[in-house]
């Protein structure tokens, strides 16, 4: 195959991974770190699969001298521990970097119900601004979403910005998002919540300036400060 053809193939493959809900097309540092974690684990897993299946294929043949300990301890115990240890380490390292922490990040609220989302953020005067199925966040800075539920368990998920976090009645969960650039991102409820589950989608709008000036958008309703 020629070089351009190869490049084209690679491009097609990558394009195949794109989409408004794709975790493989991240748009913020958190989702990006997790995507890298995935590609690294995929590479490792592919190598291990080839290795194990290679050993299996080589098993078909004349009997060989084997030492039990090489298989059970060498491969079974030490080899697997080494691999698992490094994966775990990578996971902890990434996890440590993407966790919400007390750094004064902007906080918004997401309240799930059957079947939709009610989002709240504060405007410049500290008044609560509510919106349905549309979440406003600042771009380029971390945002913590406080997630609650009205009725059953839902899950708040914006794949291009971060992993998911459940909305559980009686509890408040915190998830951290970060969008690199202003724009629109898709979100979806990820925990099965009844007949409306597939349609429980929402949009996230990341704004360059915060709090955003929404005066010319009709959908917002303003309320007194909480």
């Amino acid at each position, binding site marked *: 195959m020629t070089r351009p053809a190869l490049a084209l193939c690679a491009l097609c493959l990558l394009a195949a991974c794109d989409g408004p809900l794709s975790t493989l097309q991240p748009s913020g540092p958190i989702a990006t770190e997790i995507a890298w974690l995935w590609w690294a684990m995929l590479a490792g897993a592919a190598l291990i699969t080839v290795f194990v299946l290679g050993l299996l294929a080589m*098993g078909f043949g004349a009997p060989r001298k084997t030492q039990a300990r090489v298989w059970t301890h060498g491969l079974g115990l030490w080899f697997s*521990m080494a691999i698992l240890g490094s994966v775990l380490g990578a996971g902890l390292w990434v996890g440590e970097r993407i966790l919400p922490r007390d750094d004064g990040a902007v906080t918004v609220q997401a309240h799930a119900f059957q079947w939709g989302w009610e989002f709240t953020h504060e405007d410049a005067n500290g008044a609560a601004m509510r919106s349905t199925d549309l979440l406003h966040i600042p771009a380029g800075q971390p945002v913590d979403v406080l997630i609650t539920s009205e009725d*059953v368990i839902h899950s708040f998920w914006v794949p291009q910005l971060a992993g998911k976090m*459940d909305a559980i009645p009686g509890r408040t969960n915190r998830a951290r998002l970060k969008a690199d650039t202003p724009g629109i991102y898709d979100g979806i409820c990820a925990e099965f919540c009844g*007949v409306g*589950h597939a349609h429980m989608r929402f949009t996230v709008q990341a704004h360059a300036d915060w709090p955003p000036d929404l005066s010319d958008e009709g959908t917002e309703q303003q309320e007194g400060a909480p």
Partner: protein
Amino acid sequence: MTDIPTPAAASARADSVHVAPAPAQRALALHRDLTRVWRNDRGLWGQITAVNHTTLGLRFMGTALVFFAIGGILSMLIRAQLATHQGAFLDTALYNQIFTMHGSIMMFLFAIPMLEGLGIWLLPKLLGTRDMAFPRLTALGYWCYLFGGLIMLTALLFGVAPHDGWFMYTPLSDATHSPGINADVWLLGVTFVEISAVAAAVEITVTILRQRAPGMKLTEMPLFAWYMLGTSAMMLVGFPPLIAGSVLLELERAFGWPFFDPTRGGDPLLWQHLFWLFGHPEVYIIFLPAAGVMSMIIPVMCRTTILGYGAIVAAILALVFLSFGLWVHHMFTVGIPHMALAFFSAASVLVAVPTAVQVFAWIGTMWKGHPQLHLPMYHICGFFLTFVMGGLTGVMLAIVPFNWQAHDTAFVTAHLHYVLIGGFVFPMMAAATYWLPLITGKARIRGVGEAAFWVILLGFHGTFFIMHLTGLMGMPRRIDVYPDNPEWVWLNLTSSIFSFVLTIGFAMFVLDLILQATLGQRTRRDPWDAPTLDWAMPVPSPSYNFASLPISRHLGQSARDAVLSLARGEGALAGAARGRRELLVTSVGVARPHHVAILPGNTALPLYLSASIGVFVLMMLAGQYRLAALALVPVGALIWVWARGMAPAGDLRAVEVAPNLNLPVHHCAQHSLARTGLAAVLVADGTLFVSLLFGVAFLSVVTPATPPPAAGADTVTSLVGLGVIGIALVLAALVGRLNTRSAAALGLGANLLALAALLWLAFSQMDDPTAHARDALRAAVAGYVGLHMLVAAAMAAFVLDQFRRGEITPQTQGALGAWQMWQHFTTAVALLAALVLIAQVGVS
């Protein structure tokens, strides 16, 4: 594990059983005798009254196969719906029933019964005995499985099947959000089916521990037995949390006791913990028997012995232990503290180590030996190819940041099918092709099986491999349409097309089985040249398995050498001279002959009992709670009749097991199978109790507090009531030792007194259980303890009756020992419950 010392068998060393050679023609006489005693009755009625492990094991597996087909058809509907983004074929409500039923059927009505059936069918043959420890219990388990499964299927036909997903998360599954009987069908149906799981776990444990051929040490038994021992131990500890959760949720739905309702002090996460405390071990419960099959078949296919027996046993024990420590990895997105996340992530990763040990031991075995590519070996390769990938995606999912993205997406669907089909279905297909000659006595027809394998392999990976990508591209599981995401269409369409290839493959596999059973040529004995006892019998296997039970010298031999000698009666307990079903019970550790157990014959009692439990379940489903309570009367009466069947009767003289070795029959022996069985039941029962206490602790400590209404109880009165119960129960536990008729009467009275005091406390002092989860859990704990007192009273009454009938003598113990064990357990849980209650009041 300790050995049980017995005076009677002290001289009977495992290797001291010797039997002189016998003439060949004796085989036919023995066969006639044994068949008369062990065979099922004739006709349809004979099927209903059958208690034989071969019959029931096969029936379990056959029924499971039917449920697999039904679950498979449902999965075809799912895939048809998902093939395009508009769906427009099933409506959402129906779709939700279909995927819920697909998952529930595959897990509860296919996988678990299939492995139970395999264990029930294979273990006695492998261990060198004639039946499972409690044949009537085997049958009871089967009927409960069948009736529970039929209830769920009927609900599907009428469009009222469960629709909240196979893990039934609350509050979605509570009475507010799932009105109608759909969720009740799941809770009651699955719990009904789980009776069979607990029953199977009890008898598999007992059979492995106490019925091995004399001289087959625990540390030398075939690996499949180790795997099944691990499985049954996990079932004894794994199913009770699910049963506890289901009972609590059903109580919440039926009577408004708010265990999981956050507005009244309950917690939806309590359900998740109870469910996954079962649900994760469940995956290993399914995997271990399959791995056991691998460990049996690979060495035979490779003409060698297994590599690393000790390491594999250690790996099994590690899996059993570890798998109870990682249920939280199904809950990484519920908002768990970070330290806990790290801990459970590490534990989940760690569980891959024992799995890796086994995989490498199997591959090492292949290196050591000379693999021959018979059909079972194809499926074993299918296992490796699929399961290794499923295991690796499992490790990925254990990594918390990645889990946050992949959780609840098609990636998880792909992973779980790689593990379940790779780790269970492929090994089961290997097992079917390996053991079918022993079932049918026929050899297989070349070609069809291989073709089926290739089609299945292609169909499977075609369906599920790209589903990983579908998930990473953001497709959640359990959605029926995706109009806004055309980029998922080609992925889903591909999966759907290949899923039909997969179905064709499975159909070809079944066709192969049918062809073999009907058109196959007769096969010779031991067609694989295997070293294990399962092949040391004629094909198809006779109802009694062994004309004489294998003794030490048969264990070292190949099956081919042992088979004739056993048929001629050169083992222990040859024939059926006394006209009753007998087998040899041995000690736990080194399998020293201990006594002779007399098993019950064919009976319809299991059918009656499970049918009456079925009536109870149906009444609960119909919301007829009074009638349901009434339906428990026949259940109790039948259990009494059942127990009467165990009373000492007939010829109680010692039996000549082999020349110079006379052993007592079980009525006159100290440590009978029933006693080991009761111990296993109490392990499960104790876990049930601990699950309730876990609920108490969880709601008191973890759940965000919702203040309960002011307690109405009067401290002094309550303490007096508790004191009366405590003293009465301690008394009952103490008098049990006295072995006299008046002691039994006293025990009965004490239990009744305690029960009366509990009822009085419940009605005068206990707060309304519908008001707050704390009070609901107290009521549940009280109900648990009360039920145990009731059973203890019934057992004391039973013992009293046995004294009256003269069945309890210095030689025969009757039900005395069983009552004592139960009484001690009851007294202990009652005291513990009282302590916890007092501590809880003290803290708040």
